[in-house]
């Protein structure tokens, strides 16, 4: 017990680790992580909607390539995908001379591409499941109204599929936040990168990683509550009615 309070005093008084400088690194890390996760989720979502529709197609030649894509990206570690994209783009002949290079040169964009492709694969499968689960009655009703396939997709199937996908998608968002921790292996100073820096400089694993763990925990809870709130709003019609 004595040790713990002594440790606490040390932490607060003779604190050499959590100076404004290192807190600055954590702050920058938080910004990088948030940008990376947010942008990859948005881009992934935009990709996933048409992909999920194609994946649900009755035509094998449309659905099979998409299945192959999701199978590969869901079946291999994100770390490998990141390595392949980060180290791989360099070996595209002449890439250094093109207009793309100033973008791809930074670690941020290869990481963003890897994360986007990864989350798009998972999200595609989530949406596909939700599309598949559309009730027959709704589809028949739409047909009876004489809706075209397109209109039905837009007005009936997708809106209800999005709602059904919400809980699973919430998990995917949290998963992406956690997966983004590997960005530091390609030199990005995200939250985990900041923690690794502090650890390497002060040899203090507990201080460095516990602090960052708490930040991640708070972010996770924030996402969790946000999705609970969304579910409450959007899925209100599914709740048991009070009689």
């Amino acid at each position, binding site marked *: 017990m004595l040790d713990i309070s002594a440790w606490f005093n040390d932490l607060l008084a003779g604190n050499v680790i959590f100076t404004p400088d290192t807190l600055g690194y954590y702050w920058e890390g938080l910004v990088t992580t948030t940008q990376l996760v947010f942008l990859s989720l948005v881009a992934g979502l935009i990709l996933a909607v048409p992909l999920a529709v194609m994946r649900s197609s009755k035509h094998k030649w449309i659905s099979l390539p998409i299945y192959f894509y999701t199978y590969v990206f869901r079946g291999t570690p994100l770390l490998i995908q990141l390595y392949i994209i980060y*180290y791989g783009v*360099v070996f595209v002949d002449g890439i*250094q001379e093109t207009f793309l*290079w100033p973008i791809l*040169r*930074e*670690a941020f964009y290869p990481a963003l591409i890897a994360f986007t492709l990864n989350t798009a694969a998972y999200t595609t499968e989530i949406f596909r499941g939700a599309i598949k689960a559309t009730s027959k009655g709704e589809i028949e009703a739409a047909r009876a109204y004489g809706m075209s396939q397109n209109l039905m997709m837009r007005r009936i199937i997708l809106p209800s599929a999005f709602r059904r996908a919400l809980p699973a998608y919430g998990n995917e968002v949290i998963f992406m936040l956690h997966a983004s921790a590997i960005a530091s*292996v390609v*030199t990005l*100073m995200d939250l985990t*990168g900041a923690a*690794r*820096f502090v*650890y*390497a*400089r002060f*040899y203090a*694993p507990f201080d460095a990683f516990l602090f960052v763990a708490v930040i991640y925990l708070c972010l996770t809870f924030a996402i969790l509550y946000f999705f609970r709130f969304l579910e409450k709003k959007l899925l209100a019609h599914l709740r048991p009615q009070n009689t």
Partner: protein
Amino acid sequence: MKKLLTVSVLGLAIAAASSAQARDYDHVRIGVDVPYEPMEYRTADGELTGFDIDLGNALCDQMGVTCEWVEQEWDGIVPGLLSRNYDAIMSSMTINEERRQTLLFSDPYITMPGAWFAPADSDLEEATVETLEGLSIGVQRGTTYDNFATDTFGDTATINRYSTADDMVLDMDAERLDAVFLEFSVGKSTLLENEDSDYKVVGEMVTEPKEVFGEGFGIAFRQRDEALAEKFNEALAELKEDGTYDEIFARYFGEE
């Protein structure tokens, strides 16, 4: 409670590959970060070699102890020593005040300057806050070079930190970095002697400020292991006396 107990029992069972470590130093484990050519690296057939390795083995022979090299990445090398994964670090570690607070050092066994490297066609002529502004600089995470670059250029340049020197060279080849800051001998063998691309040294060798770049490389020990450090110091003095040290030095750096 039951769960806690089970977890700890399981933990101990798995960790029980352990060995009760005795206090007489007839077997010394030395931590080293590989590859860091020419100081420590593996030859094509996987054999560990380099200046530190040869000198370390010679020191162990001199002391009449067996030595085991334990590979550890740089950013975990000090925690690894403190947590007794090995008993000493011999891995081109600069002796400086910041590290002295945590570690006990042997006498310096070699002095190596740091240096800046850039592509041969780069405009960079010297490394200052002004010339490096806005550029991407590569350093190895947790090295004295990292600390110095972070404190001096951190606000004006982008500092990319790598786990190994090899990672850094790859990104330098890929043109992701404008300059790297590392120990001269390592930059020389990995960058200047690289056949595929042309690199140059930027500016002068860096040995100042002394608070950061210290008094040369030393073997690091846990602070309580004074007797072990003393043994190494004696052996080092003897090797310098009988010419073995010079012979190993010449093997890697030529006659100087």
